[in-house]
Structures are given as C-alpha cells and as structure tokens.
C-alpha cells in the first residue's frame, strides 16, 4: 500500500526454506504455503523438488519461475548423468541452477537452495539467491520467513551435528518462522539425503511445538465451557 515503495529493493518472498549439512549428509526443510496475494492457494504444497536421485532443491519466490528453473535443470542433469555414466555431483546441479538464474536475472524472481550428497564431497548445501549468486554454505536459509531465523541460527547452529539433531533443528526453525511470517504456514516437510539414500518426512501443523502466545488446540469452545471446574484447594 506504500506508494513510495522503492521498486529496486529485492522482493520479499513468501515461504521459509532451509538447508543444513550434518556429519554424513544434508537435511532440507520447507513450509507448505503457496499464496496468491493474501489468499492461501495451496496449504500443503511441496517446495522441495527432486533434481536427481541424490540432489534436491528448495524453491521460494515465484512458484512459476522456480518450477521452470528446476524443470530445465532436471532435464539437463538427466542428460549429463547419461553422458557422465555416474550420478551428477551437487556442485554441477547448483551451477546449472546458477547459470539459469544469473543469465535471466532481470526476468526471474526465485531464490533456491540446492542440497544433496555425492561420493566426492559428501553432503553439500548451495544457496542461490535473487540475481544468481552461487554460495556454498554449511547451512542456508531463504524466503520471507527466513528474516525471523537469522538470530536463531546464529545461536543454534553447530558444526558436526547428528542426523536427528539436524532434522530437529530444521523442523524447529521452520515452525518458528511459520509462527511469525504470514506468508509461511501449513506443514513442515523435510528431506534427508545421505550415502544411504533419500528420506521424506512430514510434520503436520498441529503436531509442531507451541511457541509464545500460542495455545493448545481444542475441538470447540463448547468442550472448554463444559469441562469440569478445578477442584477447590484443601487448606
């Protein structure tokens, strides 16, 4: 509504996406809300998309742009895998994303986090924000919900976590972002990638931990009104 908005400032994107390395692989996480303006068009979207058997990408920003970029890269990687004769590395996948994001920077509006495992480098995370910068990181956060997580990760991130520690960190972080970002919501989806393969997990909104000023969900107000009053104290 601010008519004096700086049109050159980067657009804040709906979504919370996270990629984290641990000792053995990577954990990718995302919320599941896709919005058209203020309406939630899809409350159970899947923002973690497969590129190859061992490399996945978290998508944020324009749904259309991110889908197209990942579709093209999946196609190129497929051909590359055939030509190479072995699974593509995470670095190659990330670079293909970068190539498309950078050369179309004026038209695309999508921030991506590429994560995967290969036999040469192990688990790796690459952040590719707006503009097409490629940056390898031990962990990456993106999307509008990530604004609320910078302080959290500064404090909570540790090198050399176990698989369970890393996954719990990701679920906690996405859940915290959902609590404060209107553009993020729904369920938390995670994908764990390591030498053994890929595992998808699903954490529905009502199973997540409650944060400040959030209350235990009820079936109805009628249940609260009809519940017995607490016993009087015996002094």
């Amino acid at each position: 509504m601010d008519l004096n908005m700086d049109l050159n400032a980067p657009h804040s994107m709906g979504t919370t996406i996270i990629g984290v390395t641990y000792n053995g692989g990577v954990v990718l996480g995302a919320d599941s809300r896709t919005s058209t303006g203020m309406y939630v068009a899809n409350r159970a979207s899947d923002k973690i998309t497969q590129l190859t058997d061992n490399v996945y990408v978290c998508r944020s920003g324009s749904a259309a742009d991110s889908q197209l970029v990942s579709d093209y890269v999946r196609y190129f990687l497929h051909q590359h895998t055939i030509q190479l004769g072995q699974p593509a590395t995470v670095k190659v996948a990330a670079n293909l994303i970068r190539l498309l994001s950078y050369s179309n920077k004026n038209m695309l509006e999508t921030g991506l986090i590429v994560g995967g495992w290969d036999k040469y480098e192990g688990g790796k995370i690459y952040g590719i924000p707006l503009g097409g910068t490629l940056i390898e990181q031990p962990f990456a956060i993106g999307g509008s919900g990530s604004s609320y997580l910078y302080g959290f990760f500064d404090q909570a991130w540790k090198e050399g976590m176990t698989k369970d520690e890393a996954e719990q960190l990701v679920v906690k972080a996405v859940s915290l972002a959902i609590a404060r970002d209107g553009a993020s919501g729904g369920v938390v989806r995670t994908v764990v990638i390591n030498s053994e393969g890929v595992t998808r997990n699903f954490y529905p909104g009502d199973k997540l931990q409650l944060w400040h000023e959030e209350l235990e969900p009820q079936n109805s107000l009628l249940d609260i009104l009809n519940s017995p009053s607490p016993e009087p104290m015996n002094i």
Partner: protein
Amino acid sequence: MASKQPENSLLGPEADSQRTLYPNVTGTSVVALKYKDGILMAADMGGSYGSTLRYKNVERMKAIGKHSLLGASGEISDFQEILRYLDDLILYDNMWDDGNSLGPKEVHNYLTRLMYNRRNKFNPLWNSLVLGGIKNGEKYLGTVSMIGVNFEDDHVATGFGNHLARPILRQEWHENLSFEDGVRLLEKCMRVLLYRDRSAINKLQIAKITEEGMTISQPYSLKTYWEFSAFENPTQGAVGSW
C-alpha cells in the same frame, strides 16, 4: 518530520493533521450471526504488521454500553479511536440519567455517520466494523465499512470472511440457532479462514451478547486437519509441481 503532503493542493492544508494513508497494524476478519438468544461474534486475536504476525493478544471485540458489541477489522489504532468516540457517546447518554439507553440500532447509525463523514474528508478510519446487540427482545446485527457502506443482516463478516465465511453462513444459518449450533457454525467459518487467510492466527475469542449482557470467551485455539493422504506426497506423480 517531513510532511507527506502530496503535490496537488486540492486537499487543502494538512500540516497539522495526520491522515491514514495506509494501515500499519491490522486485524483480519470478524464473523457474526444472530442466534436464539442474541448475537454471537468471533474474531481472532492477531495484529499483523504487514506480513509479520506481530501481536497475538489483540482483543478486537468490545462491549458498547449495555446492549451492543462491536467487532473491528483493519487498522487497530483507528479501532481504538472509535472506542474513544463511543465512550463519549455512551457517557453522554448515561448522564441524562433518564432510564433510556442507546441500543444497537442507534450505535450502528452513529458509526455509519462517523465512517461516512471521515470518508468524505478523504481521511478514513481504516476499519470494517460489525455491530451486534439485542434490546427489548429485538436482535440487531449490522456492519459498516471504511467508506461508509452499511447494512444489517442475519449474518455478517468482514475482510476475507466475506469470501470464505458468508457462503457457509448462507448455507447453514437458520432462524433460532441454539448457542451450541451457533458456536459450531462460527468455528467452522473460523477454521476455513485459518486455512486460507494469510493474516489469520490460531487464537480466537467468541463473544456473546444477550438480554442479560455481554460475555467474551477466554482465548483458545482450534484443531486443524492435515492428515489427508493427498497432502503427504503431492508431487509423487508429478515431480516438480507444487
């Protein structure tokens, strides 16, 4: 502080007053319906700051006098200003000490004039209001928008509630709903809003106004359902879709 006066001078001297150009802290939908004993109204407790869900304990429904209940969506500071205006109105009415008191119809009319006159001065109170009440057995439920559009009906909603709640109410509302049925119907509307409105939060209150008076429930949260099998792996058959 630099003045935000626009270039054209048709709007007159504005150096002293502040006008609401755009809302800052906003509340989302309010939903209300008539039932057997009076009015039931529901609103969540969120105050959004743009897309941030900044405040989670905002009471957006307040009693007005003995017979009315006001719910508001939109700019919270403007709602607080409206409450001040209504305070004066009720006080003035009480000072007559004549046994009469302003009913919901009168308060609704006052609010309509207030909103419309501000709109004419290009300085609106950025709210959508729901005014409900009961006096001498007569139930009343009305709404006023920020531009002064007003009407009364058996069930009303503001904001996203217009698009998501009103169709449900049209289908399922009937005369002489019991309290339990009324609450369940409102909760059904609020749950849909929770799924589909970006600015909704899962913490709401339901207020009731009857001949006896106004009560507002403690804040509580609704259970939500995510266990559809289609939600678990939506892209299995179409890798790369949403």
